[in-house]
């Protein structure tokens, strides 16, 4: 028997909890999973890397068969997912059903970094090198960031990817795109999405932090410890700087950071957004999913 996990029509960080709930319910049994994306009309980088994380987690379950994936019915959507590099990675994780165009990941201006696997330090080097070549013009010309901000952008991306290498205990994916965010902001944004299906923040920090939090310990407390207090599982006092650095960079450019791990989600919410700073009791989803958003500077109000 196959259990269905529906991929939301508009698949981004806002609809991710709906997807995670469907995943948690379907994955509870031992049946093979079918991720149904036929009705998908759009997916953000966060949706695409999150779907890969779900595919990996589904295949890793005890006795879990490689999950099925039905591709979006819209040829335009499939083409975009292909150009974003999604299917190149999905082929290893899913039994893909539907026609997928044989397109190389894009070098178009929107896709600053196609969906890229992150498993080791070398992958982070490659990502940082690529993004500096591709992002400089976009950040400066389209988003109005100081040209010097490109280096900070690469640094934030590096730190976000390193969380996978250092803490996840499994590989993950990163994707970076620029697009017009009409619905929310009426301006352009650059979005970095990083996802893995590893152990998550709670498991990573538990040996060093659980006692300190006592009864409060859980996914939300772990995210708070990591993002707000800058704690790390390592005793070395120099650890835990990465997320703090990401926060500083985003604060300078009025950006947003949100991290979902396990059953909780934390966000540093800029004034243009109405997200909730901390959510707990969400449907359990493996690993960690990180979202960084940098908006075009100073041209529109929230």
């Amino acid at each position: 028997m196959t259990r269905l996990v529906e991929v939301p029509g508009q698949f981004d960080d806002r609809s991710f909890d709906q997807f995670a709930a469907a995943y948690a319910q379907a994955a509870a049994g031992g049946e093979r999973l079918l991720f149904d994306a036929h009705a998908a009309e759009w997916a953000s980088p966060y949706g695409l890397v999150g779907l890969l994380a779900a595919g990996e987690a589904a295949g890793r379950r005890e006795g879990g068969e490689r999950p099925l994936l039905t591709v979006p019915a819209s040829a335009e959507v499939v083409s975009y997912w292909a150009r974003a590099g999604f299917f190149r990675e999905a082929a290893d994780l899913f039994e893909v059903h539907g026609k997928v165009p044989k397109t190389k990941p894009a070098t178009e201006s929107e896709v600053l970094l196609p969906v890229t696997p992150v498993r080791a330090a070398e992958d982070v080097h490659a990502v940082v090198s690529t993004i500096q070549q591709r992002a400089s013009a976009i950040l400066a010309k389209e988003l109005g960031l100081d040209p010097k901000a490109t280096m900070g952008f690469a640094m934030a991306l590096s730190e976000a990817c390193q969380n996978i290498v250092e803490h996840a205990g499994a590989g993950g994916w990163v994707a970076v795109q620029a697009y017009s965010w009409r619905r929310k902001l009426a301006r352009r944004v650059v979005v970095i999405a990083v996802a893995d299906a590893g152990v998550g923040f709670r498991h990573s920090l538990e040996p060093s932090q659980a006692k300190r939090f006592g009864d409060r310990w859980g996914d939300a407390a772990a995210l708070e410890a990591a993002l707000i207090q800058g704690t790390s599982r390592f005793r070395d006092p120099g650890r835990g700087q990465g997320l703090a650095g990401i926060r500083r960079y985003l604060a300078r450019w009025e950006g947003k950071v949100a991290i979902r791990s396990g059953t909780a989600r934390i966000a540093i919410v800029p004034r243009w957004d109405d997200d909730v700073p901390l959510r707990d009791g969400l449907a359990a989803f493996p690993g960690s999913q990180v979202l960084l958003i940098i908006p075009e500077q100073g041209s529109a109000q929230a």
Partner: protein
Amino acid sequence: MIQHIKVHEVLQQSVAGFYADLVTRPTGRAVRESIERALPEGTIAVMDFTGVGCLDYSCADEIVAKLVREKVRVLLLRGTSDAHRDAIEPVLLGHGLAVVWERPDGTLHVIGAREPAAALLDELVAQQVAARTPGGAIALTAA
């Protein structure tokens, strides 16, 4: 005697692959260990970042902070960009450390925690490695 470290060259020699960016802990660790092998303890060292692209917090911590904490008496940074210093300064502050930064015009300034910073330029002057310029700034006497 001042020890000179060309970080970009050390990076090329320490890590497989042609990288210009100092990112990730393993890279930072490899670079620091290479530097440590060639550096006598308690020395004054000039660390030249010319040619280095992105520097992330992990590498700033592994290379700059750990060398200052464990190996060198005074560390002087040369050829740094604003972005390099954006990564280095918070790491130094987190450890309560400071380093000397040489501006492109050759004048010396300190970045990092206030308390150790105050003594750094005095130390360089006392060692006759640096001196006051006629304009009142401090610069190295011999690069």
